[in-house]
């Protein structure tokens, strides 16, 4: 479902003397449907960079990132927009929403964008919010004022609203209490069971051990610095 081959990436900082910083070289990775692969490696090793490249958020310098048949590294913006709408979900660490939009609409939005009716989309959103223990009285409020943990759970609900065939999870259990952590892990297991291919970053080792079928150490993709 997700297939990465010979991927490399460098940042060119034009306003700092055009410094070129190579951050990834010759990355190879694949995730099959129903499989969860965890990325490991120290901070700054390139886990998030790799996730962002799969998401289409960072441009690849060279190589292939195939998600559901589309090469993200070469795709047109509108192809990536469609991929994100239909095929590829992403739970980031940060919630980015239009202020003042009610939480329930934030969670329902991915379904609304797919043409699901308002009632059905909201029902699904309510279901997830309830499961993630967001009190119902908060559903009509904007999540921008929520605590970090609550925002994180809203983000997860949003990411799981539509049954994407492929999912990117960036620290989905960070800043969650034990009860909600287990809810999230159950959601991940359910996604795997329906055949979703999942690529994730888990600093929570116990969580990683529980849901990941394999781990990939991104230090293997760190470019050798030319001395």
């Amino acid at each position, binding site marked *: 479902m997700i297939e990465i081959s010979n991927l490399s990436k460098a940042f060119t900082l*034009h*306003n700092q003397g055009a410094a070129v910083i190579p951050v990834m070289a010759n990355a190879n990775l694949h995730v099959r449907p129903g499989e969860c692969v965890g990325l490991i490696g120290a901070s700054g090793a390139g886990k998030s960079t790799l996730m*962002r490249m799969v998401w289409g958020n960072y*441009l690849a310098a060279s190589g292939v990132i195939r998600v559901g048949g589309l090469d993200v590294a070469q795709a047109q*913006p509108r192809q990536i*927009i469609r991929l994100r709408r239909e095929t590829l979900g992403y739970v980031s660490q940060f919630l980015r929403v239009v*202020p003042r939009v009610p939480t329930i609409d934030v969670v329902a939005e991915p379904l609304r964008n797919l043409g699901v009716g308002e009632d059905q989309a909201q029902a699904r959103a309510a279901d997830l919010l309830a499961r993630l223990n967001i009190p119902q009285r908060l559903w009509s409020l904007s999540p921008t004022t929520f605590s970090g943990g609550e925002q994180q759970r809203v983000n997860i609900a949003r990411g799981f609203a539509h049954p994407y065939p492929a999912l990117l999870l960036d620290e989905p259990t960070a800043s969650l209490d034990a009860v909600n952590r287990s809810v999230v892990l159950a959601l991940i297991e359910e996604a795997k069971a329906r055949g979703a291919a999942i690529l994730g970053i888990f600093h929570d080792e116990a969580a990683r051990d529980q849901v990941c079928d394999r781990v990939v150490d991104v230090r293997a993709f760190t470019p050798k610095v030319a001395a």
Partner: protein
Amino acid sequence: MTAIDRNMHAETDQPLLAVQGLTKRYGGRIGCADVSFDLFPGEVLGIVGESGSGKSTLLSCLAGHLPPDQGRVIFDTAAGPRDTVTMAEAERRRMARTDWAFVHQNPRDGLRMGVSAGGNVGERLMAIGARHYGDIRAQAIDWLGRVEIAADRIDDRPRAFSGGMQQRLQIARNLVTGPRLVFMDEPTGGLDVSVQARLLDLLRGLVREMGLSAIIVTHDLAVVRLLADRLMVMKGGHVVEQGLTDQVLDDPQHAYTQLLVSSVLQV
């Protein structure tokens, strides 16, 4: 148009608007130079750049307010793709009040300040032949509701409205004929932050529900991040970078874009 229609459109390969080599000069100075892009149904394109970068000139050329010196602006009309630069003025103006809409930064430029809110919304309907007062008024009330203006304000003039309400009225006035393409020039400029947020939410909802395509010129990167699918960065009349909005903002490739992105104050 429903979101389902929109998604069906998104799968067509026929752009709604195809811009090719668009150039406008002011004497020896460049307004915009050799701009080309395709806009597909349901897409929102953001155009950013500093003052004088040519983004407003480009928008004016696209919307037919300024004649470009070179280039083509091909719109997918009901009768097939047509170059709007060379079409007869009567036809272009008819399109401008049916298939197209233009939201000005200053509502005073886009509203008739001496005419009631209902008259402002009804004008486009009357321009395309609506001659039943009751129907026109019912549609005006419906649209005022959609932009969150109370029905009992229908006979008030825009002068009596706040800046945010004026801007929402301008949007209602433009969208009442169900256009397919909306041009917006700094639609949230001049509004305070909380009013901006409300307007952004409204625009996102309308874009989704009506399957609108939109071209938004702004210097506010937060606005394009929330509204635009794709982003075009302009400098000195040239497009220096374009791509997926979050990609351009998070992994900018061009020196100017990097400067622009790094210059934004973090809140």
